[in-house]
């Protein structure tokens, strides 16, 4: 144990590197906690791996949803089982060796935080724009998409964009009252309750006004093959909205409709997305818009569209299933919600014309028609959600004429 001071030095280095890895992966770890951790590790000892794990856990993890991320990074960083024993004997954790080791699949986010990412692959730029693939098939491919390949850049860009968005939604008046200094109606309950406290002969009136609340938001997201590039990002968007808003329901559809609301409630986006990937069977398969909307109308619309819900329908409208009753289902959906917003990534093409049968059928039944191909357009969506905007109305008229 002659080399003890030096050993401590390496342990400190490693813990600092570990903390940096956690930070890179998006966990809020300050330099102060590293010092605390060092002291704690000294106290607890590093004789046992699980002791060491829980010691670090106690200091670095502050919220329940960080546990999975911590777990992954921990096992990745301290993967070498002999590492801890050898650490006393001066060994450095060989990060480089891990680069070559394919190992078991872990979240891309954790890997990239440790610098294990594939640097040869072109990274997305700030303006995340996805390629459009004009392919869609009728067959149910039942392929399960691996969500692990979402890169940190993508997540960071999306998060930033979503943080920029002001979801000042168009408020829906409720029948509930809240106190207001003046105006509204007279609140007799409060007026009389205060009566004994007032000077004789004076009865000051209290007022109350109708409350308002943001409407329920329902997102129907197309995850079929032709939407592959966008659906991933939009599920992210849905996740952010779900965790921001009180009432939001999300459904994914390709050849069948899946309710993914509960999966998106998990605060950690990785965990949420893996739950969604597990639940949704028809990633990147065919499209059956009419049929899926029919399923939604029959099974869900009466359960989630009550009390003035706003519906966001995310699809490219490329539906070949002409027997699915698309027009009928769209009309029904339009009648049962407060506002129907269609987000179509195809709109980003300047020369876009509503030529396809599906698009022409759906257009007359939507209130707003918007694009959603990049983060900016998602930002503009907030506008569409907050009240009537004249510009969009004019645009809408143009689309309808073109159709």
């Amino acid at each position, binding site marked *: 144990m002659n080399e003890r001071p030096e050993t401590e030095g390496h342990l400190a280095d490693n813990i600092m590197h570990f903390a940096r890895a956690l930070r890179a992966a998006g966990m809020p770890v300050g330099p102060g906690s590293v010092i605390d951790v060092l002291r704690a590790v000294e106290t607890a000892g590093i004789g046992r791996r699980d002791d060491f794990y829980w010691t670090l856990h106690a200091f670095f993890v502050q919220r329940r949803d960080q546990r999975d991320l911590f777990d992954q990074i921990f096992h990745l960083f301290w993967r070498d089982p002999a590492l801890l024993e050898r650490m006393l004997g001066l060994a450095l954790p060989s990060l480089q060796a891990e680069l070559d080791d394919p190992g078991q699949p872990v979240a891309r986010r954790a890997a990239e935080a440790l610098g294990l990412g594939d640097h040869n692959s072109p990274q997305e730029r700030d303006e995340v724009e996805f390629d459009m693939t004009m392919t869609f098939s009728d067959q149910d491919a039942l392929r399960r998409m691996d969500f692990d390949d979402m890169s940190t850049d993508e997540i960071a860009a999306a998060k930033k964009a979503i943080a920029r968005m002001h979801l000042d939604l168009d408020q829906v008046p409720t029948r509930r009252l809240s106190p207001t200094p003046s105006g509204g109606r007279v609140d007799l*309950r409060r007026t*009389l309750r205060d009566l004994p406290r007032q000077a004789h002969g004076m009865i000051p009136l209290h007022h109350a006004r109708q409350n308002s*609340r943001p409407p329920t938001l329902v997102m129907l997201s197309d995850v079929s093959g032709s939407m592959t590039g966008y659906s991933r990002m939009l599920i992210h968007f849905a996740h952010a909205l779900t965790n921001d808003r009180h009432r939001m329901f999300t459904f994914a559809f390709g050849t069948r409709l899946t309710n993914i609301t509960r999966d998106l409630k998990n605060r950690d986006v990785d965990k949420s997305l893996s739950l969604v990937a597990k639940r949704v069977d028809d990633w990147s398969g065919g499209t059956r818009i009419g049929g899926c909307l029919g399923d939604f109308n029959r099974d869900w619309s009466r359960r989630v569209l009550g009390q003035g819900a706003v519906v966001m329908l995310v699809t490219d409208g490329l539906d070949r299933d002409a027997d699915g009753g698309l027009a009928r289902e769209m009309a029904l959906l339009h009648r049962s919600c407060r506002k129907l917003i269609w987000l179509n990534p195809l709109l980003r093409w300047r020369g876009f014309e509503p030529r396809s049968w599906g698009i022409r059928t759906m257009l007359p039944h939507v209130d707003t028609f918007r694009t959603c191909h990049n983060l900016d357009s998602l930002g503009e969506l907030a506008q569409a959600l907050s009240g009537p905007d004249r510009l969009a109305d004019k645009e809408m008229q143009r689309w309808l004429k073109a159709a």
Partner: protein
Amino acid sequence: MSLPQSIDDTVALLESADYLADRSLATGIYLSLTMGRPLFLEGEAGVGKTETAKVLARALGRDLIRLQCYEGLDIGHAVYEWNYPRQMVEIRLAEAGGDVDREAIARNIYGENFLLRRPILQALESHPSGPPVLLIDELDRTDEPFEAYLLEVLSDFQVTIPEIGTIAAEAPPIVVITSNRTREIHDALKRRCLYHWVDYPNAERELEILRRKMPGCSERLSGEIVAFVQALRGKDLFKLPGVAETLDWASALVHLDALTLDPKTVDDTLGVLLKYQDDIARVKGKEAAVLLDQLRRDMTVDSAAQ
């Protein structure tokens, strides 16, 4: 009347009030009565959820207190409210009488006789016939704040009125909550209740219900009505007909002096059974005729087998 001692007792009790419950619903009711937990009934419109509470009150000889929910329902309409006009008059009278003891006035106007008791408060008070049945109907129509308030009431069976104090129920009422699922009720509330999904009855039970509720309907017509409705429930319709619709339809057919179903009568009266134009358009004409043909063939086979 005392509470049933077993599930069989419960079935018999409900049957004595002309309500034919299936075993699972009877189990739910029995458990709810013995454990003192609210019963949460969910199901499509017209399957007899509200009727369950009414029948329970009738069969047990208890009072039925009904709270119909709607959006914006607040404490003032669900629990209690002070009678403001009367309070004002009282204050004015006190003033006119030269009474200036403000404390006394305040004590007076917040007395029992100025309190308007709304359903929940009524349900907590003691009733001569025993704890009443509190029916909270269509809870999905209210908003979350009321649901949260209800959570408190349902766990302690007491409400607090600032001017008076806490009013607690001597014996908790029998609570039945219904929901049509136009909105998902929060898990926290469901957790405190016994949940039961009220389904459409099977043919046999539906026929028995029809016999009891519509004695004027001939055996043959009843059989045909039930077979037709049951066949409709197998179709892909937007709103399937419930038991209430079956009874309405039977009543309509009796009023039209129909002895048996024929395509024309079915087409003319379909609006009693189906409430969406899309559904009516789909079933009317050919589809109805095919269904009728099918059920007539089945019935002949059945009677031949017997």
